[in-house]
C-alpha cells in the first residue's frame, strides 16, 4: 500500500492519448458508438432496442459508482438516491410536459383530489430547466451529505452504512402520498416526449441511441478525469489518504468534488432510464437496489471504468433473461455470482483477462 502515491504520480501524458491508451475503455466507447449507429441503420425489435437502452443507463450508473469506489475507495450504498433524483425530476418533466400539451392532469394528482400540479412543479415542462434541476439537485444533495461526512472524516464502512441509511430514509419519505410525487404508486403514464408520443418506435430508438451516446461520453469523460492529475490524486487518496493530506493536498475537497460529479452522473443515468421504462416509484430507493449497483461494479471489475460497464451489462442482461425464464432461480444465481467473484476473482471478471493490472490497494491480499 505504501507505494501507492509514487505509482499514482507516475509520468503524465496528453489527455486525448491517455483516453485512447486504455484499450478497454476505448473499445467500449467504440462499441457504444457502433451500437448506436447500428440501431439507427437497421431497426431491430423495439423490445431489444429498449433493453439495450436500459442496459446503457445501468452502465452509466455503474460507472458513476466506480468513479468513487474504484478510484477513491468510497463505497456508497446509497447511489440509488441520485439515480432516483434524476429519474423523479425526469418523470416530473414528462408529466408536466404532457399536462401542458394535452391538458390532462396526471393520475396521482387526480387521486389526491388536487386541482392542479403542486406549486414547486412550476417550469418543469421546460426540458432544459428540468435537466439542469435534476443535475443541480443531485449535486446539491451529494454536496450537503458529502460535506457533512468527509469533513468529519467519516469513511470506509461507516460511510457505506450512513449512505445506506440515507437512501432508506429517502425511500420512506417517497412512500408518503402527500409529497406531490406520486407516493407509493410512483409516477407513470407519461404521454409525450418532446411532443412525440411515448412508446413509438422512433422515440424508443432515439432514447436508446441517446443512452448509448451518453454512455460513450461518460466513459470518455471519466477516463480523461482519472487519467489527469486529479485522477492520480484520487488514486493516491484511495491508497493512503493520510499521507496525501500530510503532503498538503486537501483530500476533503478532492473527495467532495468527485463525489458530486459521481452523483450527477448517476442522476444522468436516472434521467435516461425513466422514459425508457415508463415508470418511477420509491422502490428504486430500496437499499437492496443501491447495493446491487455495487455488485455490478464488483462483478465487472473495480477501479477500471470498463469493468463497471461490463458488470452492469452482464448482470442486468442475465437478469432480463433469467427473471423471465426462471424467476425463482435468479436470486440464487446472483448471490452465487457475487460470492464467486468476491472469493475467486477479487478484482472482478476482468481478472480473467488480465492478472497484472490489479489495483495496488487490492494487491497483497490473501
Amino acid at each position, binding site marked *: 500500500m505504501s507505494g501507492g502515491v509514487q505509482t499514482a504520480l507516475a509520468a503524465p501524458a496528453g489527455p486525448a492519448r491517455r483516453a485512447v491508451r486504455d484499450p478497454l475503455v476505448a473499445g467500449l466507447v467504440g462499441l457504444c458508438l457502433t451500437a448506436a449507429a447500428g440501431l439507427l441503420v437497421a431497426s431491430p425489435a423495439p423490445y431489444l432496442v429498449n433493453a439495450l437502452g436500459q442496459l446503457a443507463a445501468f452502465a452509466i450508473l455503474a460507472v458513476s459508482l466506480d468513479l468513487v469506489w474504484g478510484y477513491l475507495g468510497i463505497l456508497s450504498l446509497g447511489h440509488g438516491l441520485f439515480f432516483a433524483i434524476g429519474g423523479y425530476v425526469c418523470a416530473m418533466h414528462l408529466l408536466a410536459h404532457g399536462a401542458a400539451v394535452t391538458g390532462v392532469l396526471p393520475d396521482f394528482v387526480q387521486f389526491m383530489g388536487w386541482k392542479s400540479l403542486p406549486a414547486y412543479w412550476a417550469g418543469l415542462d421546460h426540458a432544459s430547466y428540468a435537466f439542469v434541476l435534476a443535475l443541480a439537485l443531485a449535486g446539491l444533495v451529494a454536496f450537503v451529505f458529502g460535506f457533512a461526512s468527509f469533513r468529519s472524516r467519516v469513511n470506509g*464502512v461507516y460511510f457505506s*452504512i450512513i449512505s445506506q441509511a440515507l437512501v432508506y430514509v429517502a425511500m420512506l*419519505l417517497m412512500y408518503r402520498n402527500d409529497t406531490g410525487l406520486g407516493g407509493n404508486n410512483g409516477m407513470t403514464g407519461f404521454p409525450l416526449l418532446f411532443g412525440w408520443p411515448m412508446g413509438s418506435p422512433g422515440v424508443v430508438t432515439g432514447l436508446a441511441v441517446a443512452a448509448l451516446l451518453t454512455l460513450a461520453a461518460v466513459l470518455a469523460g471519466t477516463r480523461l478525469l482519472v487519467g489527469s492529475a486529479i485522477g492520480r490524486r484520487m488514486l493516491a487518496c484511495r491508497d493512503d489518504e493520510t499521507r496525501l493530506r500530510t503532503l498538503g493536498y486537501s483530500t476533503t475537497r478532492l473527495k467532495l468534488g468527485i463525489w458530486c460529479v459521481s452523483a450527477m452522473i448517476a442522476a444522468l443515468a436516472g434521467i435516461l432510464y425513466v422514459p425508457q421504462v415508463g415508470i418511477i416509484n420509491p422502490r428504486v430507493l430500496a437499499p437492496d437496489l443501491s447495493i446491487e449497483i455495487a455488485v455490478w461494479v464488483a462483478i465487472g471489475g473495480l477501479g477500471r471504468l470498463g469493468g463497471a460497464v461490463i458488470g452492469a451489462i452482464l448482470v442486468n442482461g442475465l437478469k432480463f433473461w433469467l427473471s423471465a425464464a426462471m424467476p425463482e432461480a435468479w436470486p440464487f444465481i446472483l448471490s452465487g455470482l*457475487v*460470492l464467486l467473484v468476491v472469493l475467486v476473482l*477479487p478484482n472482478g471478471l476482468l481478472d480473467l483477462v488480465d492478472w497484472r493490472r490489479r489495483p495496488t490497494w487490492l494487491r497483497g491480499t490473501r
Partner: protein
Amino acid sequence: MAEPRRFYLWVLPALWCLVHSATPASAAPLDRAAFAADLCGDGAAQVRGAEGLVQAGGDLPADDLAFAGRLLGALAERRLSCRAEGAVLLDRPSASEGRDAVSGAPRPVAEARAPVLGLRQRAALETARGTVALLTGADPAARGAGLSVVERRIATVPAAVLDRARDAETDPALKGTIAGLAQAAALSSPDPARRRAAIAAVAASPSGTAQARLAALKSDPAYTADPAFRAALDAGLAQVSRAVAIGDGLAVVYNGLSFASILFMAAAGLAIIFGLMGVINLAQGEFIMLGAYATYGVQEAFRRLAPGLLDLYLFAAIPVAFGAVALAGIVVEALILRHLYRRPLMSLLATWAVSLFLVNLVRVTVGTQNLQFVMPAYVSGGVPLYADFVMTWNRLFAIGFAAATLVLTLLILRRTPLGLDIRAVTQNRDMAACLGLPTRRVDRLAFGLGSGLAGLAGVALCPIYSVNPGMGSGLIVDSFMVVVLGGVGSLVGTLVAALGVGGANVLIEPISGAVAAKVIVLVGIILFLQRRPEGLFAVRRRR
C-alpha cells in the same frame, strides 16, 4: 394511593345498595298477577308493565325477575295466551295446552289469543327483556347481550339497575363495561348532586375515554348555568387530564424501552462482529429471521411431540435459536468471510450475497407468508397500570430478554477466557497473535457469538413482529445506525445508542409521524458524527 381510592369505589356503592335494599318500599316483590294482566292488556298497559319492571328492576328479587323474563319472552315469541281467567304460557306458538303464568298449573287452551305488539310496545318490551337478561343472565355472553340492549335505551333505565348489575357481575371485562355505562348514564342524570358525584367517580378512574366523556360535558347547558357543576367539572377534568398525560408519558417510556431493547438485540451481535473483525454483516437481519424461524420450528416440534408443554416453547427456543444461528454464522465465516478479512468492503458484498441467498432459501422452502405463532399466556395481554397505560406482556418479555442478554454477553466478554481473547484481538490483533492467541479461531467463535445473539433477537421478536422472510431488511438499517452511533465494538455504546435511537423514534413518532422520526434520527446521527466520527464509545485501539 390507589388502594384506598379503589376501596371507596367498591365499598361505597355496596353500602349504598345495602341501605336502599333495606328500605321496605324498594324491597317490595313484583305483583305477578298484575304484571301478567298488564302484558295481556292493551298497548298502553303493556308499556306500563314493561317500564314498571325496568324501573323496579334494581330492587326486585331474582325469582321475580326470572318470572318476568319468562313472561316477556313468551310475549315476544307469541307463546303467551291471554284468557279471561289469566295469562297462560305455551310451549310453542298456538299450542293447545300450557301452564298458568302465575301458578304454573297445567291448563288447556282451546284457541290461543296471543297479544300483538306494536312498535312502541316492542321497544319497551325489548328494554325490559334486556334488563332481565343483564340482571339474571346465566353466562357473561347472555348478560352482555342484555347490556347491549339496555345501552340503546339507557335514558329509560334507572341507575339502580346498572349498579346492581355491576355489583353482581363476575366477569371483569363486562363489569368494566357496565361501570362505564353507569357512569355515562349518571353524567347525564337530571339530579345535579348525582351528576357531580358521577364526575368525581369518572375522574377517580382516569382514562382517555373518561377525559373525552368529561370534555363533552363542557357544552352542556348546566356548565354555564350551574357554578357548582362547573367547578366540579373543571376540577375533575384537570385531574383526569393530568393523569392521562402521566399515563401517556409512561406509555411512551415503555414503548421506547421495548423498541430500544429490540434494537439492542439486533445490534449487539453486529457490534461484536464489526468491532472485532471490521466486517459489516449485512446478513445480520437474515440471521435474526433465521432465529425467528428456528423458534417456529421449536413450536411445531412441541406441537407434535409434547402438546401439553406447548406454552413453554419460547423458552426452549432460546438455546435452539442461539445454537442454530451461531452454527450458521460459523459456517458462513469458515466458508466465506475467512478469506476477506483484509477487504472489508468486499466482505460487505459477500454478506449481502449471503443475506440474499438466505431470504430466498426461506422463501422457496417455507413460503412468504407470515408465520402463525401460539402466544402463551405470559406474552399475551397486559395489565393496566395507570390511566391509559397498559403494560403489555410481550413487550415486557422483549425488555426482560434484552436485559438478560446484555448481562450474559457482558459476563461472557468480561469473565470468560473467550471474552478475554475477544477483547485482546479487538484491541490489537497483531500483538494478540504474537502472544500466541489463535486469532482466527477467536474470530470464528466471536462470529458465532454475534450470530447467536441475532438468533436470540429472533426469539424476542416472535411475540411482537410479524415473522416472514423479509423481516430482516426492516431491522438492518436501524441496527446499523445504532452500531455507528454507539461506537464500533462497544456493547455499552450499543446499549446507550439503542436507548437513544429507540427513545428518539418513539418520542418523535406521535408528533410528526414515523417517517419524520427516521429522518430526524438519521440527521441527528450525521450531526453527531461531526463531533465524534467514531461514535459514542469508540474502543481504543492501536493500529
